[in-house]
């Protein structure tokens, strides 16, 4: 390997700045020296050259290889530092041609023969460990669900839509894992012990003769066939007393040989651990996008550099998608330029105009709040009506009208979720925000509607369960006349929401999207063509599935097998959405960026999860457990089992747990975390300042450099 264009040292100018061997900026005597030629001699330029020269890009590597070449015949002990330096960066990450990498590798192998025993063993074990990890990664990669499908979608529609499908896949896996957890720790012991394989003791309610314990779900005996279908859809009847709902779990302990397995304890702990597992997994997935979005101001990079250099999706292989991408990039750039003009116009806005705009926005926000309040009130009334008028106990639940009444909350919520985004989209256009902010603001409003409608439903449920006329609540703590087993009832509501959500997605795809495509293809009326083909709206689709997942999390305590239903539901939805995408949709003209997509999905999911934890926590710790069914008949609340179990621990452990749970520990811990947080915020601020200073310095250095080179050229010309 030749050592590149080394300049003759004899032609050094006497009054020039000194330089070490690598920083020669001089030319051989006699040749003309315009400024640009000097620039080409700079080491920063040379390091980018890939081929004929052998500058490897870092001075260390250069030194190490020279060291190697020089000392191949010499002392082996000098090789250790060289090989260690080369191992800091794996070969595959070097920007060299394949030939050079292979030569480097051969050289590495050669010098590895001279390494002493310990380093050799370290190196070879490190290599084999790495190879093993790669083989395992390759193996697991093949096991990834739907790899080929998502690959195809990305190729045709871009990585933005591909990330939606990866998100869907993540939810399938998450639900499946939660199902496995719940199943193994709660359903399986109950099922096994009901078969009589192990000794198990049933729950013996202590208030055996009280009115609170009266609970008889209907649905047995001779029924019409279609009532079974209705029961399937509403979770009542034959489904009510199955593993699906909380009410069926009545075993107290299962004895595995010597080990006593307390089922109530397991039930509470598994629910909490499922939620914690979800939190941990989602946060882990969100961390990458989090770092980027938090550190860098997004608005700045929604624009030009990102679009030009990272705008073209290199995955696209389809001609139609490529032309769409071209048009969307064009559209984006034109929008950005228009936005720039608007921004300049805004700066010239007079005070009167600003005042008018703010007043207008205030009015429109009031309208938005009005719309929200209206839809929440509608949901509340629908829930109350449904709870009062649906007959779940008597035999008249075979009536389809009754089914409609039972589904009323779900219907109203779905209508609200479809109509309010349209209203918001049309309102936000009058508010005169920048297009990027418009999209985000509408999205925030839609998220709020989705999640708040579930909250309203739950609040209405809660008020019905815990409020009773004539002080009947004091007997059992909840409205035992209407809801003897209120946990199963809540579970049923969640079950109904989930089923209905699934049915709506299927129905919308089959009965709206397909006909729309057919109409647009075969009917060339102007109105139809203006309506156009369906666009795959990523934000709305994501909100749909996050909504479904939030319901699953809320229902997990009341209906342990709900994650299984969610898994199947999302599995089917994947294929439905994929077919719909390929057949019906054209890619959106307003592209949704892949990077912010991932972070956005995880954040929305996290919000949904946090919101879901509130009702679950409330239900476990605050509302009295029902005395008529389930695992906690002998406790006032479901949470009470934990203190009961803690009391059976040895004294030392008990004290320790009490200390951790007390205020004297929590308050200092909270203060400490605040301190740590402030420290990191201060550190980030200091780093930002340093970065700014370095940027200024860099600009100054560059000006120095150009100045010096210009002077050099002048001096060179004078001398010549």
């Amino acid at each position, binding site marked *: 390997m030749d050592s590149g264009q080394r300049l003759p040292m004899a032609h050094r100018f006497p009054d020039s700045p000194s330089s070490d061997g690598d920083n020669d900026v001089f030319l051989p005597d006699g040749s003309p020296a315009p400024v640009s030629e000097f620039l080409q001699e700079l080491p*920063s330029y040379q390091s980018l050259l890939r081929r004929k020269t052998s500058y490897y890009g870092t001075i260390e590597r250069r030194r190490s290889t020279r060291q190697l070449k020089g000392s191949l015949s010499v002392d082996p002990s000098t090789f250790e530092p060289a090989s260690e330096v080369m191992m800091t960066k794996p070969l595959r990450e070097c920007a060299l041609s394949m030939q050079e990498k292979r030569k480097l590798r051969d050289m590495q192998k050669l010098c590895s023969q001279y390494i002493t025993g310990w380093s050799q063993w370290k190196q070879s074990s490190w290599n084999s460990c790495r190879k093993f990890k790669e083989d395992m990664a390759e193996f697991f990669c093949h096991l990834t669900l739907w790899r080929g499908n998502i*690959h195809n979608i990305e190729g045709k529609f871009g990585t933005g839509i591909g990330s939606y499908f990866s998100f869907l896949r993540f939810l399938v896996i998450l639900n499946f894992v939660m199902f496995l957890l719940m199943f193994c720790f709660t359903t399986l012991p109950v099922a096994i012990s009901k078969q009589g394989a192990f000794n198990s003791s049933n729950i013996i309610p202590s208030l055996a003769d009280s009115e609170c314990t009266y609970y008889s779900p209907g649905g047995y005996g001779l029924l019409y066939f279609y009532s079974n279908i209705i029961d399937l859809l509403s979770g009542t009847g034959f489904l009510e007393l199955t593993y699906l709902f909380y009410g069926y779990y009545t075993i107290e302990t299962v004895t595995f040989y010597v080990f006593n397995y307390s089922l109530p304890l397991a039930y509470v702990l598994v629910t909490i651990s499922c939620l914690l597992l979800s939190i941990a997994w989602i946060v882990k997935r969100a961390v990458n996008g989090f770092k980027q979005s938090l550190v860098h101001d997004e608005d700045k990079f929604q624009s030009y*550099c990102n679009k030009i250099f990272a705008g073209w999706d*290199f*995955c*696209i292989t389809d001609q139609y998608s490529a032309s769409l991408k071209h048009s969307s990039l064009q559209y984006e750039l034109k929008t950005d330029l228009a936005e720039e003009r608007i921004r300049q116009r805004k700066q010239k806005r007079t005070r009167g105009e600003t005042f008018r705009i703010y007043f207008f926005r205030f009015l429109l926000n009031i309208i938005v709040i009005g719309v929200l309040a209206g839809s929440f009130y509608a949901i509340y009334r629908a829930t109350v009506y449904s709870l009062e008028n649906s007959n779940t106990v008597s035999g008249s639940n075979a009536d389809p009208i009754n089914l409609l009444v039972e589904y009323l909350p779900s219907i109203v919520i779905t209508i609200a979720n479809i109509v309010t985004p349209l209203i918001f989209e049309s309102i936000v256009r009058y508010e005169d925000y920048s297009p990027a902010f418009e999209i985000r603001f509408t999205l925030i409003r839609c998220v709020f509607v989705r999640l708040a409608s579930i909250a309203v439903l739950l609040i209405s449920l809660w008020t019905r369960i815990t409020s009773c006329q004539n002080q009947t609540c004091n007997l059992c703590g909840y409205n035992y006349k209407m809801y003897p087993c209120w946990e199963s009832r809540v579970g049923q509501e969640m079950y109904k929401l989930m089923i209905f959500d699934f049915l709506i997605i299927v129905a919308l795809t089959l009965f709206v999207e397909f006909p729309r495509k057919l109409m647009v293809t075969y009917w060339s009326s102007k109105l139809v063509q203006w309506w156009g083909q369906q666009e795959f709206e990523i934000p709305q689709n994501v909100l749909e599935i996050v909504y479904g997942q939030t319901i699953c999390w809320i229902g997990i305590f009341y209906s342990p097998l709900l994650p299984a239903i969610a898994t199947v539901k999302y599995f089917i939805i994947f294929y439905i959405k994929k077919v719909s995408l390929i057949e019906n949709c054209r890619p959106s003209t307003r592209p949704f960026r892949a990077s912010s997509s991932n972070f956005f999905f995880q954040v929305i999911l996290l919000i949904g999860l946090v919101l879901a934890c509130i009702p679950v926590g409330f239900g476990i710790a605050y509302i009295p457990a029902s005395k008529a069914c389930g695992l906690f008949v002998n406790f006032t609340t479901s949470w009470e089992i934990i203190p009961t179990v803690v009391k059976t621990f040895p004294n030392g452990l008990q004290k320790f747990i009490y200390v951790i749970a007390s205020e004297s520990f929590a308050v200092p811990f909270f203060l400490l975390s605040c301190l740590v947080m402030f420290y990191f915020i201060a550190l980030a601020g200091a780093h930002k300042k340093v970065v700014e200073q370095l940027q200024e310095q*860099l600009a100054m250095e560059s*000006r120095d450099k150009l100045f010096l080179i210009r002077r050099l050229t002048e001096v060179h010309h004078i001398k010549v």
Partner: protein
Amino acid sequence: MGNKQTIFTDEQLDAYQDCTFFTRKEILRLHGRFYELAPNIVPMDYTDDPDVKLPMQLIINMPELVENPFKERIVQSFSEDGEGNLSFNDFVDMFSVMSEMAPRELKAIYAFKIYDFNTDNFICKSDLEKTLNKLTREELEEEEVNLVCEKVIEEADMDGDGKLAFADFENMISKAPDFLSTFHIRI
């Protein structure tokens, strides 16, 4: 794919595995793709490292590249002679750098080369104009093209020389959120 003993030696496959982000199977598959481009020229037996180069025209017609506006630049950046003729080594190298496992720094180096149309190791305004025209298929007006190029230089140029050196480019790419997800080719 074929029996690996007849295409590459074990030693060669190990070398490829160390020097790229591909596994043995993927390298053999890549060889299959390379062979398909020109079955008459590319030998099946690579054990003696034959020096076979395919012209640019064949490579840019591959389905993975054919719709890419920068296909010629990509192939030229990875070819040894700068003309776009790729040997198998260069071919594997190209897809290795463009694969999803390559780190951002490595991709940034090659992205810089790709967008540097006149290969003067600076992305100057004319390079930007060519990039923009390739991206939008020349449907933007001249004034708009000018504006956009000025904005890009304003955003990314740190040392104030009116064009992007590699340091500027790398710094800007490290802040561009989409780069890693869009700058990859699946094969």
